[in-house]
């Protein structure tokens, strides 16, 4: 019997809101799925689409991106810029064939520990249902193979 | 190869001393290495970088390399610790024919981070000092801090059988700098070493080499007695990848050591 599939998910979060929200979830002893590796960044404005590609390149099955609600940005409007960027990048990924379910976006404030836990749980469940990102892992595997012609 | 020692030479410049892990590789190195050759130093996951073997052919128990931290590979090398393993591929290329220098006066001219290849020749000669005539070293760097091998410079300074001329570029001197101030070619012309029975070895940035060759000509040096080493960008080291070519010359195979006469036959604009 093979083990049930457990997705590997990378979360890029801003330090001021979502990371604090994650902290709150922790100190409130909320349980959430252990499939997520959190990477903390100063602001959602710092989350380059390169990060998402890198996460996929390293074999992530899903990526989460989260930051302060509009209007709450510590740097006044980093998240407004990020929002536009995501809008475009999301459309691009969709057009290229990377299912939008694999890359999720949210606003989670420092006070929303519960929302954080629920968000992680629901995304983990969704991606578990989708299964491993096989199309992408095939791309990765092909780089390992000797060059056959 | 294992890093057995590391030393900061100047801001961003480090020297690593490496010892062989595989006896067979060490034997091969002992058999083939002659001063002037280069190697490819690598860290897996980052890549390989080419620089000369900075240790002399008279000391083959280890390899020393000196490099400036600037790219992906050199950063990884600079961050490696004593005891870490790195890779070495080589030695490749040709060499300084130092037995042809026996009985002659030697003039070494070097600039900045280009002292390491010259240093390899210098020690190869100083370790058999009796075979050579007068030894003069002209070395310059942008600033006092950028001078590399400071301990060895002191040692050479104190030796009575070595004439050391140190200089820094104008503006690079410190308040307690007691040596010269000026660019290497100018200082060289002031020092005016005699071209009689003398071999010159120069190494430096392309612009320094260009002007130093002019100065040496003025001083009466014959192009055939002037040696230099062209350290171009290289990847394969075995005459395939195509990036070190200057004219029809594959620097990695036919070089890196050339006489000024050979260099003058190369297309100057591509140096």
């Amino acid at each position, binding site marked *: 019997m093979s083990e049930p599939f457990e997705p590997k998910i990378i979360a890029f979060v801003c330090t001021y809101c979502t990371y604090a929200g994650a902290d709150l979830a922790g100190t409130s002893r909320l349980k959430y799925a252990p499939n997520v590796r959190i990477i903390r960044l100063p602001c959602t404005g710092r989350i380059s689409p390169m990060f998402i590609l890198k996460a996929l390149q390293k074999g992530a099955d899903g990526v989460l991106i989260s930051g302060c609600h509009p209007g709450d940005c510590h740097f006044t409007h980093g998240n407004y810029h990020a929002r536009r960027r995501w809008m475009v990048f999301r459309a691009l990924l969709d057009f290229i064939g990377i299912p939008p379910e694999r890359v999720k976006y949210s606003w989670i404030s420092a006070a929303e520990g519960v929302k954080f836990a629920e968000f992680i749980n629901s995304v983990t469940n969704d991606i578990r249902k989708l299964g491993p990102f096989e199309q992408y892992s095939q791309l990765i595997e092909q780089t390992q193979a000797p060059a056959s012609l | 190869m294992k890093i057995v020692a590391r030393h900061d030479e100047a801001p961003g410049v480090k020297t690593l001393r490496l010892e062989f892990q595989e006896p067979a590789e060490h034997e091969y190195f002992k058999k083939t290495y002659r001063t002037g050759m280069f190697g490819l130093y690598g860290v897996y996951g980052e890549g390989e970088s080419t620089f000369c073997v900075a240790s002399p052919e008279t000391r083959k128990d280890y390899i020393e390399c000196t490099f400036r931290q600037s790219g992906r590979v050199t950063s990884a090398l600079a961050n490696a610790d004593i005891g870490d393993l790195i890779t070495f591929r080589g030695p490749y290329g040709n060499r300084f024919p130092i037995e042809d220098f026996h009985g002659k006066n030697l003039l070494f001219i070097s600039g900045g981070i280009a002292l390491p290849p010259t240093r390899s020749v210098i020690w190869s000669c100083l370790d058999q000092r009796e075979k050579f005539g007068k030894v003069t070293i002209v070395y310059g760097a942008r600033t006092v801090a950028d001078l590399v091998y400071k301990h060895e410079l002191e040692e050479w300074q104190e030796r009575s059988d070595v004439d050391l001329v140190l200089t820094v570029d104008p503006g690079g001197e410190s308040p307690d700098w007691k040596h010269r101030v000026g660019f290497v070619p100018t200082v060289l012309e002031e020092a005016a070493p005699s071209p009689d029975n003398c071999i010159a070895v120069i190494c430096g940035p392309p612009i320094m080499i260009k002007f130093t060759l002019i100065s040496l000509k003025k001083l009466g040096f014959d192009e055939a007695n002037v040696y230099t080493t062209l350290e171009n*960008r290289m990847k394969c080291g075995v005459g395939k990848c195509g990036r070190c070519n200057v004219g029809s010359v*594959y620097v990695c195979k036919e070089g890196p050591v050339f006489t000024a006469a050979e260099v003058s036959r190369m297309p100057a604009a591509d140096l």
Partner: protein
Amino acid sequence: MTKILFSDKLDKCVERWKSAGLTVMGPVQRANIKTYAAVEHASEFDFGLILTDRSIKDLFFPQTEPMLRYTIKKDAINTDECLPPREQRIIFGARACDASGMAIDDPLFGWDYKDEYWFQRRNESVIVTIACTNADEFCMCTSLKMAPDSTKGSDVLLRPLENSKGWQVEELTERGREAFKTIADLLQEGSDTAAPVAAVAEKFDLDACVAWLQNPENFDSKFWKEISMRCIGCASCTYLCPTCHCFDIQDEGDTYSGIRRKNWDSCSFALFTLHTSGHNPRSTQSARWRQRIMHKFNYFPSKFNANSCSGCGRCSRECPVDMGITETLQEISKLSQ
């Protein structure tokens, strides 16, 4: 009477070679590109192509290939060399320019260190060339003293019959004879005449060009800047060229394991020769174009006794700004008069 392979027997030949353990490759059109690729049936071949978009170099020197795999533990580095998988191949329907391109590069990969990746594939491949009966305005083999039916680099040369029902067979090498032994009973003796080879106009005077290039005075000629002004510095000419062989070595992986790869690289990229110090020996696009021309017609021949150009014309055919070796050498021909 000559040996003839009729086209309707080709599918049988493919079968036969395949059952003898050979991978059968040849010119095909797939996914909107004309290239050499492995086939299952003869019907996949497209012999109507004047030339594939991509050169036969792909089959001997792929755009990227692993050289070694490394794993790192605390006190040991382990490496495994990744030679190409062993595979006997027959490349059916190559063009003379492509085949000779491979022969041109043999000495380069063979001097000093012998490139095993290249020679393993070379030794495991039989190149069956079909002489061209058609050419386009970019073909220039004749200008390089070659011909649409040159035999250099080929193991077997086929000449299309006038009635286009097959090919006259000319076995050139032991390896070619060996491969054709498998299909000996499918060949017939016949007196069908071969179609005339394509008439490829001579576009420049190669000797005059080479003499001009060898003259050191012309190295700094303002011609180089003028001819390359519109060059945008991409690598389509070098990557489609059958003889261009420059490469880069890149590591992919992390601190614990990964792969060191050999990737195509190009003299037309500014980064190709850039030194750590910021100094770049070939700092302008014109210097880089000059290097490409000089290397092909002056430097390479001085080392390996052959021009590093087989006249396929892909550089001119595919150049985004309509440059290429043909135009440059035509202009040099004019200058040298």
